[in-house]
């Protein structure tokens, strides 16, 4: 099952990211994952939060442009070569990864990764057939 990610437009100006994290903190929104993609003149902050809809509302009220997108979350097996094997499965299933990033925290050395793929539904099917089931929103919540 895919989970909702929020993508936020970031103008390339000092303090913009701070403004975003402050807005979330002030509204008691807990970030599970955050990644920033940047060019020389703008950036996109991608975040996973418990309540995606609530967070998007808060951000939009704060004059940010926020948009949902579907991503897949996977637990990375806690053993050497874990991520490599996971990516191998993506490769076998011919899933095209647009970008990926790690989830903050996690416990007992266990790692979780977020993947944005070209066709989320098709990727999910192909990966599930290979025994790789993405995390459901509730599972993500429980990390």
């Amino acid at each position, binding site marked *: 099952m895919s989970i909702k*990610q929020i*993508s936020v*437009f*970031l*103008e390339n100006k000092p303090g*913009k990211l701070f403004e975003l994290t402050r807005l979330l903190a002030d509204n008691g929104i807990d970030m599970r994952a955050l990644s920033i*993609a940047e*060019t020389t*003149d*703008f950036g*996109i902050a*991608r975040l996973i939060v418990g309540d995606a809809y609530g967070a998007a509302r808060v951000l939009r009220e704060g*004059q*940010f*442009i926020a*948009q949902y*997108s579907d991503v897949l979350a996977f637990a990375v097996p806690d053993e050497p070569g874990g991520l490599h094997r996971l990516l191998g499965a993506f490769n076998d299933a011919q899933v095209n990864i*647009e970008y990926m990033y790690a989830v903050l925290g996690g416990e007992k050395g266990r790692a979780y990764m977020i993947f*944005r793929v070209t066709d989320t539904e098709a990727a999910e099917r192909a990966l599930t057939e290979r025994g790789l089931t993405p995390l459901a929103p509730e599972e993500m919540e429980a990390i």
Partner: protein
Amino acid sequence: MEHYYQPEIECASREEITRWQSERLVKQVRRVYENVPYYRQKMEEKGVTPDDIRGVEDLKKLPFLSKADLRDAYPYGLMGKPMKECVRIHSTSGTTGKRVVAFYTQHDIDLWEDCCARALMAAGATDEDVVQVSYGYGLFTGGAGLDGGSHKVGCLTVPMSSGNTDRQIMFIRDLNATVLCCTPSYAAYLGERMKELGLGPEDIPLKAGIFGAEAWSEEMRRDIEKTLGIKAYDIYGLTELSGPGVSFECSEQRGMHINEDHFIPEIIDPDTGEVLPDGTMGELVITAVDKEAFPMIRYRTKDICSLNREKCSCGRTHVRMTKPRGRSDDMLIIRGVNVFPSQIETVLLNHGYAANYQILVDRVNNTDTFEILVEMTPEMFTDSIGQIQQLQKTLSAGLQSMLGIRPKVTLVAPKTIARSEGKAVRVVDKRKI
């Protein structure tokens, strides 16, 4: 072969043209004096009576009308006919206080459509052609004017109006449209969209385009001609003066022939009001000699151009005006190129952005820097860096094509462009010249 809609008028001798102008001017001045108290007062202030006007040579005795007069007299103060004789209004999209509402009698509409028909035939259209009118319909004059002109020529008219670019392309292809009428920036945008769809000029039947309602560069003309595989013709007009069709380009494409049987042009020094000789750049002033409902005498267009009375190889005898350089009051000169904020606005709108922008000009090491801040909109934003950069690149190319120089486009967060008293500050010029 050159086609004319009204050859006996379009190719008339100078003596004939002057005679028409004089007769009509004398009548028009008297009619306006008697029916438009606002203009009568202006004449009285200048000490002129209708008896002083005996022909075109007396034109310079008359007072000017300006945008400010239009504002003062809004909405009915300049009407030359009672409301019940009017059949239509058109209006510009200007903000409050700047909006022009023009009235038309059936006679006015008829003359206006004749002017547009002349422009269409000068661009090669005949009753065999299919004309797609992609100017906006409604209050804007573009759609109605070219639509009416196309009917007069007897073309099959496709009243598309603007927007829905993919459907526009589909209609051009399915209905074999041969002539396209729209704004130049929309034509450029259609071309870009065709490229995205993998279509080239050989995939569409268009042969000519009539593009007006905004200032555009020669570079933009070449771009459009190449991507659409057509000959692109300019057309000029203002809502106050009916709409498009005050002047139009012929196959020669060296200036636009002013429809002198209806419009008498003058070029003046915008500061002193002094009439300048032919060939000199100055502000275009137009007197509409037979418009009834919204008569404009010595109307200052604010457009900067010059007049050329040399014989044109197309056979038309009416005077030609150069491409107007746009409004004299908000022009910027950047790296020697004239830039008008309105041009930037149209490109932004055509590319799906809100017209929320700010132009930053500075001078670094003796070179002008030119940057345009554009507010990101939720509609334009996507999760992909590559896609946003692509949008930025397309916009930048569209601006270069329109302006002749390439600005740096910087996307900024919504509502960040400085507003003074609620109105955005459009130009920040830090050059110390």
